[in-house]
Every structure is written in structure tokens, then in C-alpha cells.
């Protein structure tokens, strides 16, 4: 394939990865920023989203868009509620102690993964996309008659992939509005700034924590519902998003939402482009190397603020 069309294809693939990654990582970043909890089970909430999306769509017959629409609304709420329950019953009981929450979320990871294995089974199952048209992309080159348009072999995307990018962008704008324009956003930011002071002002910090943990998991589930018609729902699918989310959150700056989004786009696009031109393994190596460099030279992350 020629360089130009090749690069376009790689960027499109990278953009889909980036969109889904941004949603997942923002969830992780939110939980860390507000609650100071390193949620190792985040990837499993992602997986749970995909599996529940399969379950909801297979329960609802009719046009694929109907089941998918219901899943897109219902599944993040279900996963969010599950996470909120986990917060109230587990994380709250150990007083959000940083070391113990890591161990506890590892436990949650295994519980969710093994329960899924026991009920949903070890198979990968597909979800039909609500719409999916192959869109061939034209390319231009200088030929004998000047600028010519042609349709390179393989240079295409699908309407659904573009839809995923659009939907992810819309949700991210929604999260931003929630944080800066609503009361609950204000409470979250206040809790993030100073938990003690927020308590003193009568903010129900524990309830805020449960809500934040639920929203964080819900965002991961939303990302999974969007990606599941492209990939398939499988009980081990939570590993990669977790690793990439941590990479993104560390590069972007722990707790910084704009930093997370920028880092997600950076990692997603570079992952797409490097995997296409070289190999997916090299893409992972470079991303991990970037994390190491950030930790050495700018430990607070690209957009993070140094602790006073």
C-alpha cells in the first residue's frame, strides 16, 4: 500500500482506539483524582460493560439498533450501580487506605472476572452494530492528467467506527459539562481539592465517593459498549484497556481530565500508526518507554500539578 493511504488508514484505526481509550482512562482518572483510589478492577468494569451489552442485545430482538440503543443507556448504569455497591461494601470499610484499596480492587478484579467466566462462559460473543456501512476513501495523486482521484485497495473505514469516535467525543464533552456546570461536579471538585474541608462544609463525602466510583466504572462500561460491535465480548478483555488506561493516566497526569484526554489521543494514535507500520508489540514497548520517561523527568505527568 502507498504511504499516503496507509497513513490515513493507520490514523483512522488509531482514532478509534484513542476514542475508546479516552473514555476508559477518564473514568480511571476521575476515580483517582477524587478518591485517591488506584482502581485495578477498572478493566473488569470495562469487560462487564461488554458482556452486559451482549446480554442486553441478545435479550432484545428486532432491529440491532434497538438492542444496542438500550444497551448504551442501560449497561453503564448497571455497571455504575455495581461499582457503587462495591464502593460502599468494600472500599468504604477499609477507609480508602491507599495500599489496602489496591489489594481490595485486585480482589474485585478476580471476583468479577471469575463470576463472568462461571456465568457467561469462556467464549467470545459478537454484538451486531446498529449501523455498519463500509466507506471507501478516495485518494489523490499526480498522474499524466494532473491531479487524479482514485480508490486505493483497502483504504476504507466503516460508518460505525466513525460513529464510535463521535459518540466518545460527545460523552467526553458531557463529562466535562458535568464537572464544571453542575452541583455534583462542584461537590466532586471540592472533595478532590480537600476532603477534610469538604467534610467540614457538610459535603456528604462518602456519597460523593460512591457516585464517583460509579461514574468511573460507568464510563469504562460505556467505552466497552461502543467497542463491542467492533471487537467481541470476552471475559479476559479487561487486561489491555487497564494497562493502556494506566499508561494514559500516568502520562496525562494523575487526576487531570484534560491531560488524560490528550494522552489518550497521543497513545491511541501512536498505537494505531506504529502497529500498522511496524508491529503492535513495538507500539506497546514505546508506550511503556514513554511512561518510564515521564515518570523520570516529569513525575506529575504532562498536565499534572506538583503537590504543594
Amino acid at each position, binding site marked *: 500500500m502507498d504511504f499516503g493511504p496507509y497513513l490515513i488508514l493507520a490514523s483512522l484505526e488509531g482514532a478509534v*482506539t484513542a476514542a475508546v481509550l479516552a473514555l476508559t482512562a477518564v473514568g480511571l482518572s476521575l476515580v483517582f483524582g477524587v478518591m485517591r483510589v488506584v482502581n485495578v478492577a477498572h478493566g473488569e468494569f470495562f469487560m462487564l460493560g461488554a458482556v452486559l451489552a451482549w446480554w442486553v442485545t441478545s435479550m432484545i430482538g428486532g432491529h440491532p439498533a434497538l438492542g444496542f440503543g438500550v444497551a448504551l443507556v442501560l449497561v453503564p448504569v448497571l455497571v455504575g450501580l455495581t461499582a457503587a455497591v462495591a464502593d460502599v461494601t468494600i472500599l468504604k470499610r477499609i477507609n480508602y487506605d491507599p495500599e489496602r484499596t489496591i489489594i481490595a480492587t485486585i480482589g474485585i478484579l478476580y471476583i468479577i472476572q471469575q463470576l463472568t467466566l462461571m456465568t457467561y462462559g469462556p467464549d*467470545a460473543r459478537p454484538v451486531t452494530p446498529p449501523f455498519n456501512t463500509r466507506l471507501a476513501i478516495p485518494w489523490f495523486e499526480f498522474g499524466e492528467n494532473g491531479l487524479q482521484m482514485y480508490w486505493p485497495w483497502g483504504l476504507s473505514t466503516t460508518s460505525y467506527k466513525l460513529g464510535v469516535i463521535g459518540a466518545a467525543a460527545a460523552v467526553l464533552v458531557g463529562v466535562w459539562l458535568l464537572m464544571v456546570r453542575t452541583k455534583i461536579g462542584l461537590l466532586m471538585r471540592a472533595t478532590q481539592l480537600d476532603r477534610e474541608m469538604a467534610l467540614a462544609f457538610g459535603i456528604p463525602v462518602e456519597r460523593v465517593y460512591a457516585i464517583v466510583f460509579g461514574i468511573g466504572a460507568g464510563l469504562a462500561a460505556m467505552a466497552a459498549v461502543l467497542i463491542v460491535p467492533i*471487537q467481541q465480548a470476552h471475559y479476559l478483555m479487561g487486561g489491555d484497556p487497564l494497562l493502556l488506561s494506566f499508561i494514559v493516566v500516568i502520562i496525562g497526569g494523575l487526576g487531570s481530565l484534560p491531560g488524560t484526554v490528550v494522552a489518550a489521543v497521543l497513545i491511541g494514535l501512536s498505537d494505531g500508526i506504529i502497529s500498522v507500520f511496524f508491529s503492535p508489540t513495538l507500539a506497546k514497548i514505546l508506550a511503556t518507554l514513554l511512561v518510564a520517561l515521564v515518570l523520570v523527568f516529569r513525575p506529575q505527568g504532562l498536565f499534572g500539578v506538583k503537590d504543594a
Partner: protein
Amino acid sequence: MTKDIKTPVGTSRRNVLKTIAGGAAASASIPLWARFAQAQTSEPIRIGFQVHRTGIGAAYGRWYDRTTMAAVKAINDAGGINGRPVEIIAEDDGTDPKRGAEVIEKFATQHKADVGFGTLFSHVVIGSAPRAGELKLPYFVVSEGHHVASGMLNRYTLQPGITDVKSQVQAMAPYVAGNLGKKVTMIFPDFAFGHDHRDYFTAAIEAQGGEVLAHIAIPPTETSFTKYFPKIPRDTEVIYHVMVGPAVLTFVKEMGEFFGPSHPAIFGFIDSLEAVDLGSPGLEFLENTYFWEGNPRYAQPDQSAFDKNYRAAIGVDNNGASISDPSDVSTYAHMFGCWETLYTIKDGMEAAGYQGPADRGKLIEAVEAITDMPHSNEHPQGAKLFNGKTHQVFGPQYISQVKGGRLDVVHTTSIEDGQYPDEVDYTKQAL
């Protein structure tokens, strides 16, 4: 020494009922063991079944399990092996080589299994076989990998139920070069099984005057594939694909989306769509493309009585799906290997007069002595020829074309098409 004397229980209604129920349960179980009582020992023959319940091989594991259970039921209904019932001890290996070796160890030392059996994924076989050799546990794999016949493993590892990749691709290459094209791009999973495809198909197509333009290796745990396809050279005439793992449906779907309406000829190993419904949305582009099948998934017009019997025993319908759930598609091209291997174990044990673990060496020698396996209820996929020196069986292969959303066999290769010179003589190794 004192002995506890049980206080006699009063004859209450409840106790009487209990006794009657117990007696009924006991008498119900009598015919089962009584059937095998004529043997010197009624101890069951224990077959350790290394099954991919979880991990990337889970879909195969589910069907290998069903096939194995159906074969064991058929064997036991017909009187067992040497008059003894067969018992399957299944252990999940997580499709993981390290766990595989541990499972082999459990079979030999904890479960006191007579033999180990049933592994599919080549990396698990390669990880487990050395331990089986050390423990002198006969290890019957159903894996397709060339590692048995290549001499990489040991005298205790045998593959009598399914042909190996080298034999399969050698039989396929003339058809591909003659009917589809000579410039081939190969897409295969990046582990031992895929490397067998890479090495032996490349050699086989070159022997037919063709060439492989590009080798595209994909990790079997990969979940998105579009990024690999731009590496397909423009002058490719035939795409040769073989994929395994949980995301095979995504793989084939994304290949269709990549090419759109104008794709080169496509020849796939059905591995890329094992346990996947051919009618899944996004697979329409496969119409008229070709697949290798180890055993035809769809019942063919010339279906043998043996295939009919075998399908019914496992509970598979004429479309290769479960009778109880038509959306549960089987791994029909591979799982016959479990059925046929169990019958070979039976033949070997009967020829060796197998009594117990002390006779494991005799069992190996008896299986090595087997040559012809006629097309029968025991070998429903077709007649086979076993090579005792290389521990590998040879049999027919099927090439099918997708027509109207089902697979129709268009060519059947002979046993000779898949034969190659011996690379090892395991019989020279000590027992």
C-alpha cells in the same frame, strides 16, 4: 480394644423409607458395574483428559469435551476396554503450557490415570509432552501440530487421531496453485501451530511453482486486525488465512471490511471460523471462497453411515451445530480426532492386554504396531494410515467452497497426497 456398638435405630416410618430408598439406589446401580464384572478387575480405565476449558482454546475445549464424552459412552455401552469401564478425568489447562505440564503431573501422580489424552493447542502440547515422557505416561494428543512427527517430542507422545499441519498443507497446495493462483499471502497465528503453516505451506506452494509474497503473523490473543491487512501486497492472487483464538470472527469480518467488493481469491483453514456460524453478519463476502476442513461441517449428499452415527452420538445436526442450540456451532473439522483417538487407545489396550500402569510400555508398542484404520464407526472421518515410527496418523482432507452460506465439499485429497518421508523413528527410543 473397644468397639463402638451402634445403638439400634428404632423402626420409624422415616427410617423404613430411608432404607427402602437406599436399597432402590443400590439396586439401580447394580447393572452398571455388573456388566463389567467378568474382567479380572472392574477398576475403571482412567483416561486423563487435558481440556482447554478456559483461555484462548475454550471453544475447542467445549466440543472436544462433548465428543470425548460421547465416545466414552459409546465405548462403555459396548462393554468398555478389556471388559473394564472407561472413566474420564477432565482437568482444565487454561490453554496454557505451564498449567498443561502441571495437569500431566496430576494425571500421573494424583489421579493415577492410565493415559493422558486430548490436548489441542500446539504450545500446550509442546509444554506438556516432556513431562509426560519423564513420567512415562502415554500421552495421546489431538493437536494437528507437526511437533509429533518432526521428532521434537518423545516416545510417549502419539497423535493417532488427526493429521498434522505439514500433511494437511502439502495436500492443499496443489489445489490452491492449480485453481486459485500462485502468488499467495499468508496470514497465520504467531505461535507453533501458525509457524507450521508458514514453514510447510511456503515449501509446498513453492514445490507447485508458486510463491508466498508476504507472511503476516498475528498474535493469537489479538482483538483487532485491520492494522495488519495493509501489509498484504497489491499483486496477491490468493489470501491464505488461518487464525485461532477468541477473536476469529472479528478477524474474518475485518478482512471483509478491508477488501470491500473486490478481494483476491481466499483460501482459509476452517480454524478461522471454527465454532462460528457462517451466517454471522459480515461474513457474506466469503461466498464462493474456499476452506480446508478436517471433516465437513455440513452433512454432504454422500454422507457416510459412519458420519451419521457419529453426528447423532455427539448431538450435532446436519449444519454442524448442537441439536439443542442451533447457534452453538461445533468445531467439527477437529473434534473427530478425540473420537478416533479414544478408539485407538481402546484398540491399543486390547492388543496389549493392558492391565494397569505397569503395562504402559506395552501399550505404546501396541499402538506403534497399528497401521490401517478402516473407515468405520470408530473412524468416521475416513480411512487412515498410522505411522508407528513417527507416531503420526495420515488421512484424507476436504476442500469446501462456501455456497449459499454453507460449505460444500469440492475436493477430497487422498492419504498419499499428505504423506512425506519420516523425520524420526521414535521406536528406537527407550521405553
